[in-house]
């Protein structure tokens, strides 16, 4: 019975998703229309039928623009003001802009780098307590309730995506419980996604009219992200490790 319901619900959500996507293309870019689409009932479990992912077109990512980073800082309250006592290299960064210059040709580009939400995440493998974990829909999170602050996940992450909180924090954002002595990273805006929203960074990139970031369900061949990936491809950073990352890049 429960299974039937969730299948029905899948179909319903997929339908509304398409309507929203179509509307987004014709009316205006942005996430507002996603939110008016039918939200997941709050009491419903997330499902492994979806795998959330992101596609970043680095050719559209503007040098000097850090709208995605600022949006993430605002949404979750990290940044220099939240950790005044820590040295710059001790402060958390959930997402950062990285500048690449080809040593041979001088070709320069920038891209946002954050947790890549691997299918087989090394951070989850090494975590002694299981605090580092992957939800069934592919989002990699830290359960800070059982994180002991050993930092082994930070040693294991190929992307240096995780940060350790070095000092006492107060007045955290309600959406971002974070505190001294535990490890944290990009959550792919899990509370927005659970409410059928899109991540703050993607929203900010669209608002700047750069449209360099796509968010969507990698398991759904009809999703915008899957269509774009099928058409123009997308690379994994450190694809040699075979981690099948949920975040893909074009133009690297």
């Amino acid at each position, binding site marked *: 019975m429960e299974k039937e319901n969730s299948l029905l619900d899948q179909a319903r959500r997929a339908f509304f998703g398409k309507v929203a996507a179509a509307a987004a293309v014709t009316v205006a870019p942005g996430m507002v229309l996603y939110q008016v689409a039918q939200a997941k*009932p*709050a009491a419903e479990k997330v499902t492994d039928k979806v795998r959330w992912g992101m596609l970043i077109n680095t050719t559209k990512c503007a040098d000097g623009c850090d709208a995605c980073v600022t949006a993430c800082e605002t949404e979750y309250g990290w940044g220099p003001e939240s950790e005044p006592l820590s040295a710059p290299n001790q402060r958390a960064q959930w997402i950062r802009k990285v500048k690449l210059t080809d040593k041979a040709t001088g070709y320069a580009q920038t891209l946002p780098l954050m947790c890549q939400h691997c299918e087989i995440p090394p951070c989850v493998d090494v975590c002694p307590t299981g605090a580092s974990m992957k939800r069934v829909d592919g989002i990699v999170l830290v359960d*800070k309730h059982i994180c002991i602050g050993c930092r082994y996940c930070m040693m294991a992450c190929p992307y240096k995506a995780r940060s350790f909180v070095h000092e*006492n924090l107060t007045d955290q954002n*309600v959406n971002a*419980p*974070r505190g001294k002595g535990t490890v944290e990273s990009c959550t792919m805006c899990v509370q927005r996604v659970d409410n059928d929203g899109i991540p703050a960074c993607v929203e900010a990139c669209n608002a700047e009219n750069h449209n360099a970031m796509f968010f969507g369900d990698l398991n759904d061949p009809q999703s915008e992200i899957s269509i774009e990936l099928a058409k123009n491809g997308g690379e994994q950073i450190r694809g040699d490790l075979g981690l099948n990352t949920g975040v893909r890049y074009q133009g690297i």
Partner: protein
Amino acid sequence: MSLRQFSQKLVLVAAGLLLALPMYAGEVPSPVVPKAKAKANEEFGCVEPVTEMRKNHMKFILHQRDDTMYKGIRTSKYALAECINCHVSPEQNGTYASYDEEEHFCNACHTYAAVNIDCFGCHRDTPEEASLGQASTDKSDPYHKDFAFNKNSSVPKKNVDALSSGGAE
């Protein structure tokens, strides 16, 4: 045990009782718990009967915690953010007590009972005035209603005052 040893012990016990007496002479001290902003539910007061909440609030919160963390279930009934939103009410000057102050709803009892909790190292201990996101996505939540976290900023101050002096627990 010799008689001498026994009598020594007896004296000690008597002295102990005498010393302890003044504690029972006055009233038993009890924690001063701030009133909630509202009744979440006309029937119970809180989301469960008050006696049940006093005894088992941690079980509800803990269960909700894991449901949200691992399964993405975001109902607001037992959400910690809603507890804070309703129970941590503004003081006279409009500011909120933080967890390390004894006026804080949680701290009032927890200090009294000497039970250490590990919530507020990470979680916000006061209501968030300017709601940035959606802690609660539960559109059909029969509890909390207008006082739910998302709409927190829309609660008029006089309304809060009226309720604080009322019977809400």
